[in-house]
């Protein structure tokens, strides 16, 4: 045991004296997760509003309804409207001047046409200077126009009464008339209910559950929460790279001839491999501790300590086993590094380190469970984001520890064979 500790101590000292590559691998997940969090979770990063100019050349009831539709309820969250008048030409200059996404022009006679059931036209001028927001305005306006068309046809009778109501110079009938028309509209809607509101809508309304009491977000702020959501996947990927670096060191030592010297000493070949695997696990464990410290500083909510510790041990075991196996197979340092990089990258991609799993193509999602990084990332996310306990991550711990142990055992056979054959001496 003392000899193994001496080997681990020697390797840790070497890392401390040449820390650059280790530091880079340690900083990578922090920088990556930090950038993602700042980009998507910043306090200023609200959904941008669609700035819409409305030119009401009509002034009638239907035109006012359309203009008001963009200012009420949910629409007001997404649209910022401004009334404009006498806009010259197609309004392009004004759009540019006011940095608006679109100009909605309601032409004179619009309300009359709608009420009379005649074809009516809404003009929407989109700003060429913006990309997505004008399209949003167009979509919403299209829906609005469709709704108006449907209402115009369905409520033909009441609308005629509105249109022909006496004493309504601006299309605004008296209160008594409005009451009569309302009754009429109600009757029409009641008769049309089976066709307009199919049962599914009713069912949806009827069975709508009370929203669950949601967990508080793990990071408190959106930035913190996104950081904690992204960090585990990238951190696990970095740990695998650190482990690769650790086991690669056996081949580095073969190049430096220090491995040959160790094998000439009173050590069994297997012990040399175990020593290196322990060093690798120690470095990975320390790195995990640092990353956990940063995560804990950001988190506002605790996680299951037992779950986290057990999962972390399993992750270190899996990363060490994976690295040992890959470098045990590789013929040389460079080949091993290339192989380990490619496999780690694929496992990270399929495991959701870079892109959320639900955004991956179905084919890739199907192979995700074959990725060790998938189990590690999912386990950490269950603990951190869902606030799950140790029971919830037992399958993750089992798979990671099991596969890690099997890979370590296989790699021990590979390394021993190579060392005894004199390949590395």
């Amino acid at each position: 045991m003392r000899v193994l500790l001496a080997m681990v101590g020697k390797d840790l000292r070497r890392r401390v004296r040449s820390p650059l590559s280790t530091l880079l691998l340690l900083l990578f997940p922090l920088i990556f997760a930090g950038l993602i969090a700042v980009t998507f979770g910043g306090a200023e990063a609200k959904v941008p509003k669609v700035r819409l100019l409305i030119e009401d050349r009509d002034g009638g009831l239907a035109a006012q309804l359309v203009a008001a539709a963009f200012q009420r309820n949910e629409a007001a969250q997404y649209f910022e409207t401004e009334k404009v008048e006498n806009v010259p030409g197609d309004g392009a200059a004004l759009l540019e001047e006011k940095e608006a996404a679109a100009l909605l022009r309601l032409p004179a006679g619009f309300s009359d046409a709608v009420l009379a059931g005649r074809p009516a036209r809404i003009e929407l001028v989109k700003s060429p200077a913006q990309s997505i927001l004008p399209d949003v305005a167009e979509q919403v306006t299209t829906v609005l126009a469709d709704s108006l068309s449907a209402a115009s046809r369905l409520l033909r009778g009441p609308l005629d009464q509105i249109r022909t109501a006496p004493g309504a110079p601006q299309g605004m009938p008296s209160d008594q008339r409005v009451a009569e028309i309302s009754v009429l509209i109600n009757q029409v809607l009641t008769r049309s209910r089976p066709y307009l509101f199919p049962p599914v809508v009713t069912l949806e309304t009827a069975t709508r559950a009370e929203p669950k009491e949601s967990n508080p977000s793990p990071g408190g702020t959106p930035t913190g929460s996104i950081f904690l959501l992204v960090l585990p996947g990238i951190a696990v990927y970095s740990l695998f790279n650190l482990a690769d670096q650790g086991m690669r060191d056996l081949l580095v030592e073969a190049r430096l001839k220090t491995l040959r010297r160790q094998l000439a000493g009173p050590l069994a070949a297997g012990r040399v491999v175990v020593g290196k695997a322990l060093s690798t696990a120690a470095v990975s464990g320390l790195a995990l501790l640092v990353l956990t410290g940063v995560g804990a500083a950001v988190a506002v909510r605790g996680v299951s300590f037992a779950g986290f510790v057990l999962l972390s041990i399993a992750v270190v075991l899996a990363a060490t086993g994976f690295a040992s196996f890959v470098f045990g197979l590789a013929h040389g340092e460079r080949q091993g590094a290339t192989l380990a990089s490619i496999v780690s990258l694929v496992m990270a991609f399929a495991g959701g380190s870079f892109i959320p799993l639900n955004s991956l193509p179905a084919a890739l999602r199907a192979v995700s469970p074959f990725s060790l990084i998938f189990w590690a990332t999912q386990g950490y996310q269950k603990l951190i984001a869902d606030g799950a306990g140790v029971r919830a991550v037992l399958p993750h711990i089992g798979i990671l520890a099991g596969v890690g142990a099997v890979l370590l055992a296989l790699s021990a056979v590979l390394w021993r064979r190579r060392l005894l054959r004199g390949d590395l001496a």
Partner: protein
Amino acid sequence: MIRAETLTKKFGDKTAVDGISFQVERGEIYGLLGPNGAGKTTTLSMLSGLLAPDAGRITFEGVDLARDPIMCKQRLGVVPQEVALYEELSALENVRFWGSLYGLSGKALREAAERALARVGLTGRAKDAVKTYSGGMKRRLNLALGLVHSPSAVLLDEVTVGIDPQARASILDVVREVADAGTAVIYTTHYLEEAERLCDRIAIVDHGKVLAEGTLDELKARLGEEETVTLWGRFEADAARTALSGLPGARVISAEPGRVALTTGGNGAAGLLGTIHDCGLAIDRVAIEPPSLNALFLKLTGRELRD
């Protein structure tokens, strides 16, 4: 102490070591002298347990290396040809690490590390990173690592390659001290003068075989009073061989275009030179060498050690 019996090692079709046998006693420096590729390093790799011999047996103090490699290696110090050090670490950290591999710990390790560094004159730089050392200092530290656990036998593989004469002399002094303290030393080299100065017994090795073995005097005695005459000139190898073959007592030991070497057969070179002059060879230069290891090597192998 160390006993090697008919060691054989093949790599594919090539026989690197072909039935080498020798025995080295405590306090003795046994030199394996031969050119690059002679099989010296392969022999040491088998002695240090890094390569398993295809045939033959190795014992350390009667313990079979194949049966109990850990016990044998525990008694053995190995100093490889390459400078095998951790350059990021200090000399002290290097020595302590290697000492701990041999089971030293605590005070014993501390003292052994200090002793090893003092022995090679690196105490003053013990805490400096090895990467700041000169080539000679690294060589000395390389030697110290093999001695830190006070082994009863040491294998030194071309430990003075590529260093200045002063550092070489310092290393040779340390090797002598180690042997004088009772350690059995096997020392491989292709430097004749090192073998002549340092080794108590020498084995001349080529093509994986021991061609001759003995003390320096015994080996020289194999040449008797023979001197070696080397001639350079404008001639073909066969022509030189034919022209010189009739000389009384002389024997051509190597011939190539423009260069031929022959032994005088105890007749003395002076008498032979007049006869050589009459052979009709266009000779530009002549060298006469008294009985020496190089002459013996030339006689045994047909080529000079530096070839």
